[in-house]
């Protein structure tokens, strides 16, 4: 069964670690979806409407790389960024937008990102 805006909770990681999430978009036949013209955005917030704790985008290039031909979206939180995380749990949200006017926006997943505090960074 297909669902809209599925919940996906990324694996917890240690504050100060580098975290990468690679996501491939496939059609129902299992073929990679051509993401030419699409852009992605990943955000962490403590709650909806609050100031973003982290914002990754593909356009402009800031932490997200889209490989259109393979339908791949790669998110990277650098160790510097994660070291600055002063939270243990945050709401996460990854969206994909087309270049149509207005853009077609779809949430690929949303969930909760957990970060373990490091004793010493």
């Amino acid at each position, binding site marked *: *069964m*297909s*669902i*809209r*805006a*599925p919940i*996906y909770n*990324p*694996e917890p*990681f*240690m504050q100060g*670690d*580098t*975290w*990468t*999430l*690679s*996501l*491939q*978009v*496939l*059609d*129902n036949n*299992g073929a990679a*979806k051509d993401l030419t013209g699409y852009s992605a955005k990943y955000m962490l917030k403590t709650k909806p409407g609050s100031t973003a704790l982290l914002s990754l985008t593909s356009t402009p290039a800031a932490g997200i790389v889209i490989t259109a031909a393979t339908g791949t979206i790669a998110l990277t939180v650098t160790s510097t960024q994660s070291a600055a995380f002063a939270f243990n749990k945050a709401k996460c949200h990854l969206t*994909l937008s*087309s270049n*149509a006017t207005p853009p*077609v926006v*779809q949430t*690929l*997943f949303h969930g909760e990102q957990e970060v373990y505090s490091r004793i010493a960074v």
Partner: protein
Amino acid sequence: MKLVISETVNDIPVVTEKENTILIADFDAGAGAVPLSTVTGKGSLIVATADGAVDELVVGTDGYVPVADSGEATGIKWIPTSGLVSSDVSGWTNPSQTWAYASSTTMTVPSGAASIYRVGDKWKLTANSVVLQGYIIAVADTQLTVVGDALTNHVFSDNYYSHSNPVGFPDYFNVVPSMAVANFDDGSGGQATVVKAFITIVGRRLHGRISASGTKAGTNTNLFIIAATQFGPILAANYSGVALIGIYSRAGVDFGTVSYVAATGNIVSTGASIADNTVIADASMDFSFEI
């Protein structure tokens, strides 16, 4: 659409693809959707013009309904409900085709009439604002032969037929028979005075009555002699060897029989001999035969 997710922390895989294949609603749902701008007004329909192509079918006139028409760009057109083949509680059926005047007893119809109409059906149409009705007595591929009201040379509209007994259809139709004056006349060699003459058709059986007043011409046993074809295309073969097809009465004088004479095609009343010049005030002949 599926998402295959893998995660790593410090280059160490922490999540496998298997665990994170997520089915989500197709992202293309929006991109491939029919734009709202396709329709421009109330009542418009979105129809396919080809494989993977759609267009707008602008709303039709009030009361019209869409029907398939491969000749249209959209494959659909609007037509009035009066153009549909329909039968209502009145018993009349709209054939959705045009009838045209050919003669007072024939009309031209589209090819294939035999698959729609049959002998004995009722018909109704409007010609020059006058409603005409009658029976179908012969069906050819493109022509109907009728009795009842005489057809007039006008455009026909509101044409209907019925296999049954529709509301408003007359119980009978008057006819003007032509009788053989050699046996029955007005005393001067003209047609006897017709008091009543009508026919009705039930199924394929034609029933008729003729009542007339006049004078016997010649001394013999026959009074009414009338060509059967005046009323309908009698199935003569069905009457071979079957003499009696009706009754004949002359009040207070005689009772006789009515026969079909195949050799002449006539319907003939026969009774006791009647003297020449006998004045006959009320002779009647009933007949019934298959058409």
